[in-house]
């Protein structure tokens, strides 16, 4: 089967200047395919999160080129990037998850309400479906701040899925989860990749999680080790 490239980087490099200048990412070039479950591994401090921020379009301060869905991302205006993120990219953060004053349900609904493709009622129904998928529908109306870390992480995964984005990027999505819930998350990622053709790019420290994914890219000191 012909594999469609959904995300492509060409020689991406990035420097940090504080406290001293050093190159945190060096000549990163790889492709991710439609429907692929890709994991990013590497030692702590190897630049995984930094790369993910660039891929997510939030960090625009880098060299090289980023192409998502055949569209050149590098150099686009901040407003365009925001719209692209809203529509095409779901993001699960390493530490920061939810808006504390809103219910879990609202947290999940917000990107969809922003997109404005479906009515409020439809969005709410979709959000319930995602919550059920992740086994936390009983928490729907609780304020996000009253949830455990693992529950919050699952809500943020549900939020990443709500707009059916082409790519879902995760920074240690199972970092706070026990093995049972890690399994659930893994299965969901595998399912959306296989059934809906969505691409997963997940940073992980969990070797089993990485081993079970379609492909693993390893970073070391800002360079790709093997592919």
């Amino acid at each position, binding site marked *: 089967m012909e594999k469609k490239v959904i995300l492509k980087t060409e020689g991406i490099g990035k420097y940090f200047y504080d406290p001293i200048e050093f190159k945190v990412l060096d000549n990163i070039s790889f492709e991710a395919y439609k429907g692929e479950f890709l994991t990013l591994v590497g030692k702590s401090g190897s630049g995984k*999160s930094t790369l993910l*921020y660039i891929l*997510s379009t*939030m*960090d625009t301060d880098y060299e090289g080129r980023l192409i998502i869905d055949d569209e050149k991302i590098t150099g686009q205006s*901040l*407003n365009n990037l*925001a*719209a*692209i*993120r*809203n*529509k095409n*990219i779901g*993001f699960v*953060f*390493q*530490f*920061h*998850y*939810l*808006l*504390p*004053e*809103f219910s879990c349900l*609202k947290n999940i609904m*917000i*990107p969809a*309400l*922003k*997109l*404005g493709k479906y009515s*409020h009622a439809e969005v709410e129904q979709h959000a319930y479906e995602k919550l059920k998928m992740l086994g936390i529908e009983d928490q729907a109306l609780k304020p996000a701040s009253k949830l455990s870390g693992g529950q919050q992480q699952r809500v943020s995964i549900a*939020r990443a899925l709500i707009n059916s984005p082409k790519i879902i990027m995760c920074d240690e999505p199972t970092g706070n989860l026990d093995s049972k819930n890690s399994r659930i998350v893994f299965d969901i990622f595998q399912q959306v990749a296989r059934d809906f053709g969505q691409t997963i790019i997940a940073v992980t420290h969990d070797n089993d999680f990485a081993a079970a994914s379609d492909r693993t890219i390893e970073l070391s000191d800002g360079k790709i080790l093997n592919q």
Partner: protein
Amino acid sequence: MAGVNTEIALTHILTRKRQTIVAALGVMIGIAIYICLNTLVIGTNRYSDNAIFKTTPHIRIYKEDEVSRPLTKDSIQKKSTVIVNPKISNISKNLINPVKLLDEIKSQPEVTSAAQMVTANLFYNNGKSQLNGSGWGINIAEANAMFDIQSTMVDGDLRTLLNTPNGIILGVGIADKLSLKRNDNLSVISSIGVIKLMKVVGFFKTSNLVTDKGKSYMNLAAAQQLLGQGPSYVTDIYVKIKDPDQAPKYAAELSKITGYTSEDWQTANELFVAGKKIRAIMFAVISWAILLVAAFGIYNIVNMTITQKMNDIAILKANGFSGMDVIKIFVTEAMIMGIIGTIMGFLLAALIVNLLSHIYIGADIGYFPIEFELSVSLTGVWVGLLVTFGAGFIPARKAAKVDPVAIFRK
């Protein structure tokens, strides 16, 4: 969809009700004071304008004194020195053909009424006591229409003058000093020495003591006789126009039309006008200062919310909210507080104005001269909304610039 930004703003507002209420109360007080002070200025100005317009016309048309000129022309005797002694010329102050002039002035679209006058400097004599002042020869109907003289009468009736050719109405100050009663006779001497025996038919009292001590009203013909002049002698034409504020403009126009000097009331009452200006500036400064304090309250709370919500802003941006969306969210929060505060301020102002207008001051002021001014109140509402918009927009712009990556890395 506009909905989601508003929804987020509302949630922020509802989770911090206390601060919202405090900020709204600040706006309420600011707006209430703004509206009250400006209403007060309008009310007192209207009262004092009315007091002035009881004796001063909007525009006065008269013949200016001319200073005599040397009979010889410089151009003929270039080399010799001419000694001249400029004096006010003795030409009569008569306005020529006053009836026609009056009709012409009355036909101007801006003019609401016009009245002819003869003013004469007089001495009032009763026995040995003598008092000087000025007599106003008036056409009763015209003058009353303009100055509502009847309303200032404390004794007698203005209309008695109509069938009393030698009747005179005196200021109460004159009556006191010369101990005169109604129907007493009074001998009056004019500046050119004409003596006339007049009959006191009434007294008036204005809010101006000096006026009450010197002024009197009489028939036009009586004043003309005192000046030794015939029935076509008129010294002034007084004009009222639709909008008194436009007086300087129409004075110039009337001057052009009639060929005589015309003086607007602002020029005739410079001190009064200056006082009014100072008052207006003072109250404007005070009301704006209070508004700014209220605005600062809103600025403060929005700023604080933004500082506390850096994380949320980063999350929203990561999920595809643009800088403009973030601005909308925080401006909406400011506007909600502003709208609540402004509406309450409007109502509070209406209440205060209503209470003030029921306070009885007494004398010829009567009730406190204030009434609800819709235009000022609407301006207050606009200003309130504008100021809160600014107070929300300034910190919101900062929020729009938040770099989500920098927040997530912390």
